[in-house]
């Protein structure tokens, strides 16, 4: 019994020597990552993705650390700059399939300008933004997605700002795919990422995640299971919702689904003169 080898079916996608991860108990990143790896595994086994051409790029933050466990070409670069790094890599070698993974601070605050312009260009990449409503790695400061009024370590009197709805922002641009899932719906993360991998142009998936350690602590949901259950209660799935419906409100509810699906020529196709 003790001699039995336990091999996880996703081990081949991981730098197993590096495990365990740094993530706190109750963190949603592991759920998101394993859902993405199941989707990638399917794409690889059906032959539609060459694992040697997959490139994972991340910036700084908890979500940024996730790529370091992946047994692929990976780059853990500057805070907010994963998108332009990946753009350079893909332009230099268009065979690369770039996946940018980051938190909402990395992607939508410090990296917000790059996000806007990559979406505007319909650039050939998948961006997965894990939204935990807080700056967790630095100790619980306010994030672009933090709900109004919430206490954080840099807004001790409550967050005076209304949060950024990144789905509406990216949806207003030229992205081919804009979807939101939650770590409480891992099958949807897997399904959306699987679909996104085979599409062209800019593909954006927001994954709403639990962070009991920082966000949960601030809003009185320090317990992992309780935090997960509370998020689950708030998540509402809609079939092909419009961008107007893309509500992300901790009090009123979080709408998940596929908001935008287009098949416009990608940036590289346009560079090469492809018009449709």
């Amino acid at each position, binding site marked *: 019994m003790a001699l039995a080898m336990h091999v996880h079916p996703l081990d081949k996608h991981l*730098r197993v*020597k*590096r495990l365990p991860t740094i993530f706190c108990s109750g963190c949603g990143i592991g759920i998101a990552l394993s859902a993405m790896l199941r989707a990638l595994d399917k794409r690889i086994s059906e032959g539609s993705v060459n694992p*040697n*051409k997959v*490139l994972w*790029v991340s910036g*700084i933050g908890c979500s940024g650390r996730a790529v*370091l466990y992946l*047994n*692929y*070409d*990976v*780059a*853990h*670069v*500057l805070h907010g*700059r994963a*998108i*332009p*790094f*990946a*753009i*350079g*890599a*893909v*332009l*230099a*070698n268009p*065979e*690369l399939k770039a996946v940018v993974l980051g938190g909402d601070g990395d992607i939508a605050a410090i990296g917000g*300008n*790059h996000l*806007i*312009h990559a979406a505007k260009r319909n650039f050939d990449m998948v961006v997965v933004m894990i939204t935990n409503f807080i700056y967790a790695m630095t100790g619980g400061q306010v994030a672009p997605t933090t709900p109004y009024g919430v206490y954080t370590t840099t807004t001790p009197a409550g967050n005076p700002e209304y949060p950024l709805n990144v789905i509406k922002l990216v949806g207003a641009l030229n992205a081919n795919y804009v979807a939101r899932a939650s770590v409480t719906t891992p099958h949807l993360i897997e399904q959306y990422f699987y679909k996104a991998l085979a599409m062209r142009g800019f593909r954006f998936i927001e994954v709403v995640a639990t962070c009991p350690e920082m966000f949960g602590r601030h809003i009185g949901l320090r317990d992992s299971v309780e935090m997960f259950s509370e998020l689950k209660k708030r998540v509402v799935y809609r079939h092909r919702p419009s961008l107007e419906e893309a509500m992300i409100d901790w009090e009123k509810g979080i709408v998940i689904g596929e908001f935008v699906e287009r098949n416009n020529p990608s940036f590289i196709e346009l*560079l090469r003169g492809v018009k449709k």
Partner: protein
Amino acid sequence: MRRAFATGNFAVAEGAMTAGLRFYAGYPITPSSEIFEYLAEELPKRGGVVVQMEDEIASINAVIGASWAGAKAMTATSGPGFSLMAEAIGLAVITETPVVIVNVMRAGPSTGAPTKTSQSDVFQARWASHGDYIVPVYAPWSVQEAYDLTIKAFNTAELLRTPVILLSDATIAHLWESLTIYDRGEVEVIERKIPKKVSDEPYPPHKPDEDLVPPMPIFGAGFKALVESLLHDEWGHYSPTNSVYHSLVKRLVDKVVKRLSYVYEQETRFCEDAEVLLVSYGSTARTVYLVIKELRKRGVRAGFLRLKTLWPLDEERIRSCCPNAKKVIVVENNIGKIYMDMSRIFRNQDVFPASVLSLELPTPSEVLEAVEPWL
């Protein structure tokens, strides 16, 4: 080989293409934009990619990404844009990414005088990013040298897996001179080392060879590269310990210092009998050379040391270049920055600053006026 009539900016673009440039990302900024515009016309014809990014931060990060995808990559900018690139220079240092960054200097601080020349960024070129490191910096004084040193910048970057700065200025950028452009095969072009084969077993991708430079596991070739901006060991694993910190930072510095004889270049004239040595570099050195010839006509035994590499400096070569000089005068178009190096290096001579703060190329009379008090 062919002859052309070109500006310094065109020469940089041509030099980059001779060196094998395949990717350029940039953001428009005076006085560097002609490099970008010229490459936008020419590079795609040769199979390369040119892209305008949303800012200089995106440009330099795209250039670093492109280099990891196997392309020789460059960006060009001026002071304000170079300031924005500062953080990513450190990224290129710690990830050992060969990239060339051209800073066509203009007058600052801040927005300053965009169309006017300056040499005020000579220290910024060295120390723009935080942390301990050494990046090579080259400063051309002519259109031909803008071409030659661009090739040298690429070769240094590829040889040592490091970012390299080419410090041009508004004068060189817009100066028209004759230029000899070489074909591939007529000049030395160095390519980075990549691992010999894909390893099935996990391997330490940051383990250096004897030259202290690890082979570069470029993306898309099955190497499973691990590009890490955090302090990392030979496996690429984050490791905030003194032993890893010492070995990484010292290796990043030592790999450059070890090749100082390759990286460092200077030019001397009239040094055999010189009693007073004039030190200069870049566009200002053009005027200084003229002034030295004038001084020699007047009977002043003046020698000329022109730095082509502004960092790192070969202190021994500088110290011994002009053995009989009693005085050293450093002429530069800034508040006297390289003077600080020279006063440290020439320990047994009197070293004087001759700063000419001018928005134009310093004139012979301005240089003479700055130099004469120390003669």
